[in-house]
C-alpha cells in the first residue's frame, strides 16, 4: 500500500506545530498503525530527517501508552488502541491525518507525544485502596458478589490511554475518573474510602483543567476497552452522596 500521511510535527512544548505531509510506500495491510509509523520513521531517517515521535510500549493493547487521533478519531476507525489498529482498515492511496490528543490538560511535548501526567495525579488523589501490604491475602477472605465483580472488572479494564479526553468535545476526564471510582467503589476493599476517594479524585480532575461532562457519549464510543457511559452516572451518584454525607473527612 502507498499512503499520504499528514502528521502533526511540533519540535517541543513551546514550539509552533503544523501538519506535515509525507508519502509512504511499501505498507503491508498486516502492519499495525505503529509499525506503519516505524516504517515511515525508517524512511525519514534514511533521508536524514527527524523521525516522528509517538508514545508506545506494550504494542499489544494493554498499557495505554500509544494514543493518537487518526482521521479525527481517537485511536482511529476501529474500537481498539493505535497499536492494535491494522492497516487493512485503510485503502491504498488514502490520506490519513494523524494528530496528538488535544486537551488543555494534555500539553503536547513533541509531535504526537502529550503529557498525560494529569491522569496520574487524579489516580494519586485517591485511585487506590489503603491496605496493609505484605503477602497477598487469601482469595476467598473477602467475598465479592458476582455482579459487583463484573462491574468492577468492566471498569478496571481502563488502561489510562486518555482517548476519552481526546474524543470529548470538552476535553473532560469524567470517563477515566469514573472508571477508577466505580472499579474501587464497587469492591469491599474500596468501600472504606469511597466518599473521600470520589471527592478527592473529582477535585483533582477539576484542578487539572479538564472540562465538564455534557453527556455527549463521545468518550464511551472512543474507549478502546469499552468502559460504559453509565459509569459516569455511577460516579455522579457517588459524588453527590459523598457531598451529602459531608465528605468522609
Amino acid at each position, binding site marked *: 500500500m502507498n499512503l499520504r500521511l499528514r502528521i502533526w510535527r511540533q519540535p517541543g512544548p513551546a514550539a509552533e506545530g503544523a501538519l506535515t505531509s509525507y508519502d509512504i510506500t511499501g505498507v503491508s495491510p498486516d502492519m499495525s498503525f505503529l509499525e506503519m509509523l516505524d516504517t515511515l520513521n525508517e524512511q525519514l531517517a534514511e533521508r536524514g530527517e527527524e523521525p516522528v515521535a509517538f508514545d508506545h510500549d506494550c504494542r499489544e493493547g494493554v498499557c495505554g501508552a500509544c494514543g493518537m487521533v487518526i482521521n479525527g478519531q481517537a485511536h482511529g476507525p476501529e474500537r481498539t488502541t493505535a497499536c492494535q489498529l491494522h492497516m487493512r482498515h485503510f485503502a491504498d492511496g488514502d490520506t490519513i491525518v494523524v494528530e496528538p490528543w488535544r486537551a488543555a490538560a494534555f500539553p503536547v511535548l513533541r509531535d504526537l507525544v502529550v503529557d498525560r501526567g494529569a491522569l496520574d495525579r487524579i489516580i494519586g488523589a485517591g485511585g487506590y485502596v489503603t491496605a496493609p501490604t505484605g503477602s497477598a491475602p487469601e482469595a476467598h477472605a473477602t467475598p465479592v458478589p458476582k455482579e459487583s465483580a463484573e462491574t468492577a472488572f468492566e471498569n478496571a479494564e481502563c488502561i489510562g490511554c486518555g482517548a476519552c479526553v481526546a474524543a470529548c468535545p470538552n476535553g473532560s476526564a469524567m470517563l477515566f475518573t469514573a472508571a477508577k471510582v466505580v472499579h474501587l467503589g464497587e469492591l469491599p476493599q474500596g468501600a472504606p474510602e469511597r466518599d473521600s476517594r470520589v471527592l478527592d479524585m473529582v477535585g483533582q480532575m477539576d484542578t487539572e483543567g479538564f472540562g*465538564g461532562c455534557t453527556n455527549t*457519549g463521545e468518550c464511551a464510543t472512543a474507549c478502546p476497552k469499552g468502559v460504559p457511559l453509565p459509569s459516569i452516572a455511577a460516579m455522579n451518584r*457517588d459524588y453527590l452522596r459523598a457531598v451529602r454525607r459531608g465528605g468522609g473527612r
Partner: protein
Amino acid sequence: METALPTVLGMALATRTDRRPSPARLLWRSTIGKKAVMAVTGLIMLLYLVSHLLGNLKVFAGPDEMNGYAHWLRTVGEPFLGHEWFVWLARCVLLAAVGLHGVSAYQLSRRDLAARPVPYAARRRATARDSYATRTMRWGGVILALFLVWHILDLTTGTVNPRGRAGHPYENIVATFSTWYGNAIYVVAMLALGLHVRHGFWSAAQTLGVNRPRRERALKATANALALVLTAGFLSIPLAVMTGVVS
C-alpha cells in the same frame, strides 16, 4: 488484617489536615456539582412547562374557560395566601431556576471551551450518540432565554402584545398568533425547546446518577416522549389560531 486496617487508615487520615468546604460550596465549585444544579433547575422548569401546557390547552375550551383559569390561578391558596401570592411564589422559584441554570451553563461552557483549545484538523462525521440535540444545547438555551424575555413582555406584561389587555389571556393569545412574527418566534422557540428537553432530560438523569445500564433505554424514550408532547402541545395553539380553530 481486620485489626491492621483501621490503624493504617488512621495514619492516612491523620496526615490530612485540610478540611472540606461546606456542601453548598463544594457543589458550586465542582463541575459535577454545578451540573447537578443545572439538572435540578432544569427539571423544575420542566415540571413547570408540563403544568403550563395543561393550563394553555384550555384555549380550546373557549375564552371563558381560559380567562376563568387565569383568574383562578391568582386566587390559589386563598384565604391562607393573599391574592396573587401563589403566582408570585411560582415566579420567584422559576426566576431562581432560570438564573441558576443560565449562570451554571455559562460558567461550565466557558470551562469546557477552555479545556479543548485546539480543534482537530480532521473532522470526523458525528457519531450516533452525538445527536443534533446534544450539539445545540448551548445555542438552543440562548434561544430559549431570548424567547423567555419576549414571551413575558408579550403575554405577562402585555408590553409587546398587539392587544395586551390584562386579565384577558385568550384575546391576547389570539392577537399574538394573528401576527406572522408571533408565530415565527413561537415555532422556532418550541422546536428549540423540544431539542433542549430531548437531551436535557436524559442528561439530567445521567448527572443526578439515576441512569443505570438497564434504565438507559427507558430514560431516553421518556426524554423523547416529553420533548414531543411539549413541542406538539405548545405548537398546537398557534396552529389552531392560524387555521381559525381558535379565534
